[in-house]
């Protein structure tokens, strides 16, 4: 077994844009679930909308800043549409409505109805919407080697997208840190702990929940943009499985913590890489074909999620007292 290759592949996941994208999405979900106690089971819908908003507006000729604003605006509208019917109801209604709404987004996106905009089930090719982002790169052309990693500076899956993605993650972490120390953040935690007490203090619980839903959704949309920058927009790649993986990332790192989502995302993808590489090396190819490695690792994610929630629901960094596992 080639240990060096195994470790290099695993370490590459630490800085991969995909890891950053899931970290961002999980930070958004953390605002929903960790801090406010909202059960959002349709986070991939926010991500997909962000990706579509960014890609379609860029293709239509919008500059980078406008495309990003449009991506975030899509998430704001989506959050409002979801929140109005459900935020006054018990938590599991929000779960069912969000997962349904995310599926609606995916189904409409992959429908042949809007093929000209969304490319239907084949999605939007990456090269069609990356130019504005890549034009912004200050790096010279060519490729750079840092330690074991060699990537092109400005290739679509190169250093520039890594730097930008992790810069956004860092800003998001800082933003959430400051926000959750603010009075606004304390009200959110209050809602999570005891909604009626907060109501008794004269705060509009509904308005605060809505603001949290919008904020987390916007972060999710940014995660979606980061996710598609190195690849392409594929509606079927951003379905329920993605939502559940974001949940795994969040619960792994620890809900209601500042660094939990980032740590969770890193551990999730590093472990996944190690497990996959090991299975490829160890499992006899005549019993498990390479194509079967992927469902096998998917199975392991599912089992890991179950065990995690049962035996360590607070995750790695979390505090058991700050858990929000009760429906209201």
């Amino acid at each position, binding site marked *: 077994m080639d240990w060096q290759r195994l470790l290099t592949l695993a370490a590459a996941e630490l800085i991969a844009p995909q890891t950053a994208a899931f970290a961002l999405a999980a930070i958004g979900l953390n605002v929903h679930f960790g801090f406010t106690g909202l059960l959002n089971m349709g986070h991939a819908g926010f991500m997909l909308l962000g990706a579509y908003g960014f890609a379609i507006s860029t293709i239509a000729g919008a500059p980078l800043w406008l495309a990003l604003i449009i991506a975030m605006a899509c998430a704001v509208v989506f959050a409002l549409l979801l929140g109005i019917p459900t935020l006054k109801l018990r938590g599991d209604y929000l779960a069912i*409505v969000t997962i349904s709404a995310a599926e609606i987004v995916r189904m409409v996106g992959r429908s042949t109805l809007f093929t000209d905009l969304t490319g239907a089930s084949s999605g939007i090719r990456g090269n069609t919407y990356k130019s504005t982002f890549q034009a912004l790169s200050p790096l010279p052309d060519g490729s750079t080697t840092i330690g074991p990693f060699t990537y092109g500076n400005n290739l679509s899956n190169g250093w520039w997208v890594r730097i930008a993605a992790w810069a956004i993650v860092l800003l998001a972490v800082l933003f959430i840190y400051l926000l959750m120390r603010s009075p606004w953040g304390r009200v959110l935690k209050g809602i999570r702990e005891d909604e009626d007490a907060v109501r008794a203090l004269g705060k509009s619980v509904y308005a605060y929940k809505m603001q949290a839903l919008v904020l987390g959704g916007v972060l999710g949309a940014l995660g979606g943009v980061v996710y598609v920058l190195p690849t392409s927009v594929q509606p079927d790649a951003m379905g329920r499985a993605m939502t559940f993986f974001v949940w795994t990332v969040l619960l792994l790192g620890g809900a209601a913590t500042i660094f939990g989502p980032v740590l969770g995302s890193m551990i999730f993808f590093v472990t996944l890489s190690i497990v996959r590489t090991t299975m490829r090396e160890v499992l006899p190819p005549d019993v498990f074909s390479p194509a079967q490695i992927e469902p096998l690792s998917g199975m392991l994610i599912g089992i890991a999620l179950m065990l995690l929630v049962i035996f360590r629901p607070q995750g790695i960094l979390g505090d058991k007292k700050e858990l929000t596992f009760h429906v209201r």
Partner: protein
Amino acid sequence: MLAALTALLAGMLLVLAPPARAGTDDGCVSSPEAGCLAGSVRGSDGPAGGVEIQVEGPESTETVTTGEDGTWSAAITANGTYTLTLDVGTLPEGQQLLSPDDNPRDLRAVVGATRQVNFELGDPEAVDEAPSGESGTGGTDPMVDAEGGEIIGEEAPRGGSTITPQRIAQQAAAGLRFGLVLALASVGLSLIYGTTGLSSFSHGEQVTLGALLTYVFASVLGWPLVPAIILAVALCASTGWLQDAGIWKPLRRRGVGLVQGMIVTIGLALALQYLFQLVFGGGTVSILNYIPGTWTIGPVRLNIPSYYAMGISVVALSAVGYFLLRTRTGRATRAVSDNPALAAASGIDVDRIIRLVWVVSAGLAGLAGVLLALIFNGANWTLGMQMLLLMFAAVTLGGLGTAFGALVGSLVIGMVVEMANLVVPTDLKYASALLILILVLLVRPQGILGRAERIG
């Protein structure tokens, strides 16, 4: 605020409606006797017309040519593996296939459904495009959960015709059929929710399990259909027992919260889905190795399994209804649903009732899976995943936790799904059912049969 939102959502529906039938006019239309292979050839510069694709099937070989809009379709008359070969020579000047390895490609198609096959044009050298990480194989990344493989095809003709009373009757019959079978699965989901408070996301996988087990017994082992179905349903019911004994009872003992439990079901659903994919592969399997005939009653034409499925559903649902209303255990079940603590105080063994509910629900879900696989002549690992949200929609529509509400909700969802076919493209019919769910929640959050209590 509410009115504005309703108007907005209604507006969304309207936007969806008008261009619905564009492009499907003289294409292939699937029916109980014929299926379709259809798709498009497109690149980043737009669709490619005049491209020849050879469709080689078990019975015949034909060559089709893409139209101006890059779309093509071919009718098929037999289930089996088809080989599609795109003639690269007929591509527009300077264009090539994005993934030349996919040409020719083999795929399974079944009668009674449309299988979408798209060819993408582009520069295969642009390796830049590959997803991050080491997985150069792209499509097999678990992030791509291949939900594209919709197996629940449409039987009724769609598009290209106006809404006639005949079509409405046909769709209504299909809606009734789908609603009844859906009810089998969602009544169980609702009973579980009622007695334990758990929204079980792994209920969809129980549906898949029923279908796939019947496939193993009837098609792989070659047993007669009836014993195969009976054994599959019995095995499904026993998985309900196993689940409760192995997972849910210990978790109740530990005092694990409902949200935690819900996330555990999500993990279980993921694990089971990928297990099915591991064992049965990504393709669609069919239980019957022949094409079932059709019966015509008045304006309605459905395949023969559909009539049996409706009959079996009605019998099974009546049995559940009789059990809940007339038997002692059924009354106990409703008592637990109403108030578990009070039920326990009046001498009902709550754990025993919950165990029974899990067994019955898993069995019913398995039966629903078998019937769906027979109706649509195919099942794959995503079958339950596609059904799950419709079940949730049905249960929520009817009122969370009320068994009869789930029945009403299922019939509504079945009707909406099939009737939506009249106005929106087939690939949006499930989306329309979910949209109805959200709209109903706006005006009647407790659901159709739910009690108007304060929930929240």
